[in-house]
């Protein structure tokens, strides 16, 4: 408990230190430059919190990230299980997936904007594209990692093919899927912002773009602060969710002190 408290204090000290450095850099060496001091950014932030526009922009960002992440999770896991379990699926998709894997979502952004315009669908598709491939790949790896003895056990008790997939293969692959989701959650947020910043999609990305275009630097950095905190929340929630669903896995098992 004491050690925990000390750790917390040190962390808080780190944050305060970073803020002080920001304040110093913005007011002394770079005074009058484009970087607003923390104080001005913070004032701007409090004003933002009172505006309805800010909240709807925040809601857009969260909604698009979650929609993209959720659809990528559902489709990625289903495809991953099929590809991992049935060889014809694997041979049919392998080349295409390997080709798409190294393409970052930003590369296809112009094309997607051309098709959908600066809309929610555009941003959603981009998030989906960026998240689904790693989820498929990890699910396939998880399926291959399933213990043959566990699978034989299920078969020996007369469980059918779909039942084995749903009740044994899927849970066996969960540790891999969990890792993929933990990485994908913050990525979904980043891609949503990029879709707004560069593609004009709704949300905080577009707000940042507009603040920059209008030369409103305090408000630009206030948005950046909000994004930073949102990122922390995404990461925290996905970690917690992973820990919750995988409490049984060797890496999370609670070992009681002797």
């Amino acid at each position, binding site marked *: 408990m004491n050690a925990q408290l000390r750790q917390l204090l040190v962390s808080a000290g780190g944050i305060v230190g970073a803020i002080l450095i920001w304040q110093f850099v913005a007011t002394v060496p770079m005074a009058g430059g484009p970087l607003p001091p923390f104080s001005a950014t913070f004032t701007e932030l409090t004003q933002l919190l009172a505006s309805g526009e800010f909240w709807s922009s925040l809601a857009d960002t969260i909604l698009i990230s979650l929609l993209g992440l959720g659809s990528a999770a559902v489709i990625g896991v289903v495809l991953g299980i099929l590809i991992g379990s049935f060889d014809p699926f694997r041979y049919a998709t392998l080349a295409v997936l390997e080709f798409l894997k190294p393409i970052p979502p930003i590369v296809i952004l112009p094309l997607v904007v051309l098709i959908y315009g600066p809309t929610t669908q555009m941003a959603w598709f981009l998030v989906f594209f960026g998240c689904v491939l790693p989820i498929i790949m990890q699910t396939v790896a998880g399926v291959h990692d399933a*213990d043959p*003895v*566990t699978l*034989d*056990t*299920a*078969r*020996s*008790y*007369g*469980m*059918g093919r779909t*039942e084995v997939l749903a*009740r*044994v293969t899927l*849970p066996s692959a*969960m540790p891999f899927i969990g890792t993929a989701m933990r990485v994908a959650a913050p990525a979904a947020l980043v891609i949503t912002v990029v879709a707004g910043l560069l593609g004009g999609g709704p949300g905080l990305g577009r707000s940042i773009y507009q603040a920059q275009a209008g030369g409103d630097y305090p408000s630009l950095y206030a948005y950046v602060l909000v994004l930073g905190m949102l990122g922390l929340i995404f990461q925290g929630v996905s970690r917690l969710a992973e820990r919750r669903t995988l409490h*049984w*896995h*060797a890496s999370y*098992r609670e070992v009681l002190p002797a």
Partner: protein
Amino acid sequence: MAEANVSSDATVRLRVDGLAKSYGTGDKAKVVIEDLTFTVNAGEMVCIVGPSGVGKTTLLKCLAGLQPATRGQASIDGRTISGPPPEMALVFQDYNRSLMPWLTVRKNLMLPLRHLRLPAAEAKERCDSALEAVGLSHAEHQYPWQLSGGMQQRVAIARALAYRPEILIMDEPFASVDAQTRFDLEDLCLKIRQDFGMTILVVTHDIDEAVYLSDRVVVLGSKPAKVLKIVDVDLPAPRDQITTRSLPEFARQRTDVLSLIKRPA
């Protein structure tokens, strides 16, 4: 000599007939089982003994319909086994890999019952009585990995019991438990045969255990595997760890089996 022991009795439940199994094909084929023939009668307890690596697990996987035989066949009540038979349950040698780590003990027992579509009350009753039979009622909400090896093995046995198979097959079920637990599990085995009238086939490499448990011992040997002999064990029932094991007859039977295994094939 194996043929001499094939009973033409109408009560034969499980028949293994000229069964052979190789892994791989062509030049790389590895013949594990050459030619096995034996039968198990209804309600009988039969042990299979043989050195490790002889192909006991391979045989059981064929019997459980998990892999096809290369030649010959196994059948239940005259029906050739081509997939997992519904009246059979198999307790695996690797019990810790056979239990699902994401499910509690009770849910591990429930899992195979799902597709039987039993009324909830009956499924619950089966789990309760199976857990009680192995003395693990108190551990139903724990996860397998929170239990000792012997307890995990008992969970795997309880799962098979809850399934209420007519034929129970166990692969070295007591190999990794301490002596005391081992005696308890052996007696549990005798008790479930009595209580549920099951036909039980147990693989073991422990000759004393085989003689103590069985009505007949199938001795496997040589590579690829063959039946060296089928030994009838006539020890009085009910068997008891202390009195049965101290009978002169027990010593004679185990010496019989041991000399078969010791002799180079």
